[in-house]
């Protein structure tokens, strides 16, 4: 008979406040004696070193053969207690952690009921642990290459960190150039560094790094495999440019007769050609031909680019290319999109020409943008005399997105400063709350206050052009309550900038599915732990960085890029990773060869030996879901860690309190 120790954690008052932990421990020791429990203890913090030592001491002194800890979720501390067992010489898999915090004390309100349920949960653990078997963790080698998806600042940072450490990185970007949103910005808050000045050196580094293979104008098709050994299929969209011959001289886009509105990089504010690089410092330097807009592809004639190309680098016959790469880790840094301001019709975006979005304004005040950095109205020449900046457009609003988009307050201050500096216009910031929490941000707010920007506390109700007084003629009228004085105001302005919300990519769900991740209700990717593990995901080997996890500013994005790289490097360096040894295997003597299980495995781990008429499971391919175990009519497939015996025993244990003594199995 096993000797089981039961340890009930107080977790301060987190558990002890709702569960009589002492009673649970004493009950287990007294009433579950004949089920193998030899000791029951409660302790303030089981996860503390003293708490762990308590277990270790009992293992050594009482000769415990099994340990049940009733504390928090196994996703938090399972490893802690397994390690403690291991230190005391007990196989770590002979320990069971049952949750009485997340699943009992935090969700229930009646102390008696919570205590009774805790007893049931402990009893389930005790019954289950009897059937635990000693296991060894499964070691999986880590492929040293890494895939980074998304070539914005988060992806660039992650790629550079890993490449600098000496390992190969594939950096995939769906646009023709890396750079992401940051490349579109003019200045960055709060220091007002020129975005291009600090970003382009990093882009060039990424483009020329011997350890980085750039795959721009490319998209992920399919992801197979698991941590340590992913196999990723990538579609390299046809560029119609022979990159080995192209020098990036620019003659092709000079000669191209077709002008196209640039909806991506110029946010619709400027034009590009049908053959183009999005911006002058693009990395790589090779252009792409935009097939749906190319005159040759539409009409069959033109080929101006081909005629003038000095190196014969144009190739209209190129086709998409599918490549497969093997990597050990994947960093997802696919970023964000901006909210469609047309959805808030009362703001007049799309109808009133001088209502622009924050991204459009970034291009408008960018020295390399369509107006060479001149802040002018839609007519292309008039400087605005009064400009409004509307915060929280599509953020903090239950009709659109409930979350705060984090960057808008600081972005609004930055715009206020730029407008003030370059036009001398009166600037109005319309805000609900000013949020300037990080280093140097509050100081920047102070600076903008000193510059004389008007801060109106009130969410803008509407923007229209229906003048009621001569002063309002030809102006945009912002209607808002100045909540600090309690008066409805109408403010005639020349230009209004809408600080639009950051939103998940439109295809975020699809991407998440491709990589086996999940999205929150808002659509951002879910991290493993919101505080302690923000760059990991539930799927081992897949990391996230930047706005794909939630809205954030550039410093936080860069920090996450580096953090994700550190995670990947740690695994690469270790060379292998220990996985839960939960795998299925077939007891050959019991297998009838019925083949019911054969079609069930999506990982092709099940193979059938025609000669011997038995099924076998390849442990290298098995992922441990247990579906085949559940399906086998002969009970010939066993699953470690989650065997039938373990689960059936746990069910019995959980229901122990419900049945009379006579019904308890002996």
């Amino acid at each position: 008979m096993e000797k089981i120790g039961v340890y009930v954690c107080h977790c301060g008052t987190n558990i002890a406040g709702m569960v009589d932990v002492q009673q649970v421990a004493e009950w287990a020791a007294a009433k579950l004696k004949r089920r193998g429990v030899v000791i029951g203890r409660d302790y303030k913090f089981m996860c503390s070193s003293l708490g762990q030592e308590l277990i270790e001491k009992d293992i050594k002194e009482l000769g415990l053969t099994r340990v049940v800890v009733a504390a928090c979720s196994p996703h938090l501390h399972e490893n802690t207690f397994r390690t403690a067992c291991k230190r005391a010489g007990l196989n770590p898999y002979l320990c069971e952690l049952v949750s009485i915090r997340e699943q009992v004390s935090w969700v229930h309100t009646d102390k008696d009921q919570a205590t009774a349920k805790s007893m049931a949960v402990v009893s389930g653990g005790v019954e289950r642990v009897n059937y635990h078997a000693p296991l060894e963790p499964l070691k999986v080698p880590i492929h040293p290459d890494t895939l980074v998806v998304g070539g914005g600042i988060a992806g660039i940072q992650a790629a550079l960190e890993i490449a600098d450490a000496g390992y190969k990185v594939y950096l995939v970007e769906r646009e023709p150039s890396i750079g992401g949103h940051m490349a579109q910005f003019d200045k960055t808050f709060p220091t007002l560094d020129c975005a291009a000045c600090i970003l382009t050196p990093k882009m060039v580094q990424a483009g020329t790094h011997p350890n980085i293979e750039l795959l721009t104008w490319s998209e992920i098709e399919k992801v197979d495999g698991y941590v340590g050994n992913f196999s990723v299929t990538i579609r390299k969209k046809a560029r119609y440019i022979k990159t080995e011959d192209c020098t990036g001289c620019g003659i092709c886009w000079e000669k191209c007769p077709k002008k196209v509105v640039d909806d991506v990089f110029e946010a619709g504010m400027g034009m590009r050609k049908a053959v183009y690089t999005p911006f002058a410092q693009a990395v790589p330097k090779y252009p792409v031909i935009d097939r749906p807009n190319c005159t040759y592809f539409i009409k069959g004639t033109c080929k101006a680019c081909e005629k003038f190309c000095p190196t014969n680098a144009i190739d209209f016959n190129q086709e998409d290319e599918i490549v497969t790469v093997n990597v050990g880790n994947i960093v997802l840094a696919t970023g964000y999109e901006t909210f469609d301001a047309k959805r808030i019709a009362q703001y007049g975006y799309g109808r009133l020409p001088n209502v622009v979005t924050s991204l459009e304004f970034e291009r408008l005040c960018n020295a390399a943008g369509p107006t060479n950095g001149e802040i002018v109205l839609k007519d292309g020449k008039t400087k605005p005399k009064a400009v409004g900046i509307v915060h929280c457009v599509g953020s903090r609003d239950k009709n659109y997105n409930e979350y705060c988009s984090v960057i808008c307050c600081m972005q609004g201050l930055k715009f206020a400063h730029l407008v003030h500096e370059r036009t001398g216009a009166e600037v109005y910031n319309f805000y609900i709350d000013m949020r300037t929490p990080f280093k140097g941000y509050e100081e920047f707010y102070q600076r903008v206050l000193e510059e004389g920007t008007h801060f109106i506390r009130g969410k803008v109700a509407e923007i229209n052009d229906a003048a009621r007084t001569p002063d309002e003629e030809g102006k945009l009228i912002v209607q808002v309550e100045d909540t600090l004085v309690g008066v409805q105001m109408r403010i005639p302005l020349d230009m209004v900038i809408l600080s639009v919300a950051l939103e998940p990519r439109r295809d975020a769900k699809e991407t998440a599915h491709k990589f086996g991740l999940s999205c929150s209700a808002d659509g951002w990717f879910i991290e493993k732990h919101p505080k302690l593990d923000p760059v990991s995901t539930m799927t081992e080997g897949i990391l996230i960085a930047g706005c794909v996890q939630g809205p954030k500013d550039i410093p936080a994005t860069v920090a996450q890029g580096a953090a994700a790289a550190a995670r990947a490097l740690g695994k690469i360096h270790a060379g292998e990773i220990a996985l839960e040894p939960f795998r299925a295997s077939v007891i050959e003597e019991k297998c009838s060869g019925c083949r019911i299980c054969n079609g069930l495995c999506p990982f092709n781990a099940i193979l059938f030996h025609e000669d011997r008429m038995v099924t076998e499971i390849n442990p290298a391919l098995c992922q441990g879901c247990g579906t085949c175990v559940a399906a086998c009519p002969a009970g010939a497939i066993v699953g470690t860690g989650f065997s039938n015996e373990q689960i059936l025993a746990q069910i019995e244990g959980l229901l122990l309190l419900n049945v009379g003594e006579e019904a308890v199995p002996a």
Partner: protein
Amino acid sequence: MKEYAYFPGCSLEKLAVSYHTSALETTRKLGVKLKELEDWNCCGSTTYFHIDELLAYTLTARNLAIAEKTGLDVVAPCSACFKNMYFTAAHMKGDPDLAEHINFALEEDDLHFSGDIRVRHLLEMFAQDIGPDEIKSKITHPLEGMRIAPYYGCQILRPRRDHEEIENPRYFEDLLSAIGATPIEYSLKTRCCGGSLIISSRTAALTMVRNLLQCARDQGADVIATACPMCQVNLECYQQSVNQEFGTDFSIPVLYFTQLVGLALGIPKNKLGIGKELVSAMPVLAAR
């Protein structure tokens, strides 16, 4: 032939009688039958909510219960009636306790409302159920060159939140285009006409009417088209008061959309109640 249960509401009895007659004339021509509810009662407008919420729902529920017996969708030409019917039906469906309480009261008149009815505004019926294409195909006298300001008002749109474009709807414009007119774009088309505010705050209400008239005239409207008796009265009957109060000179005819559709369908003016307006539409319609 498509058939609807029809709840005219108190205003259409007299004050907005031209809305009533033109609605019946145009629908007949379009092959839609409006079957008036038997012994309907006043829905309480918004005012009953000032007294008692439960009774306000009960008043409307009686009409809904009468309508439900017909098995038809119910249509209301007045926006306040429409809003009351739409939300009473929705609340009673969503809140069984409320429904039980109200149905207990309805028993006194041998009625019961189960909540299964589709409530439509007369404008929605024209612009969405019948649809601009169907109407366009039956037009004989298109209102070419007539610049019409479509005035939605409030309660046909709000407080529905499920509605896709409550801030910038387009279906009224589409209907006006279908009858050959030119719908004008003006930014106050969904703003309030003042409702019954004329009673509690005359200055506020007249200012709101002024702003609307101003905005429509600035964009060159010949006529304002309405879909609610309250809006029509405010915009038309108070034009003179607005002119006195603000020294303006507004003289914009305000017609029900059914009157305009009727004209395009070739129905004689007198059958559409044209001539009963205080601001004569004759100068605009003279050539037609």
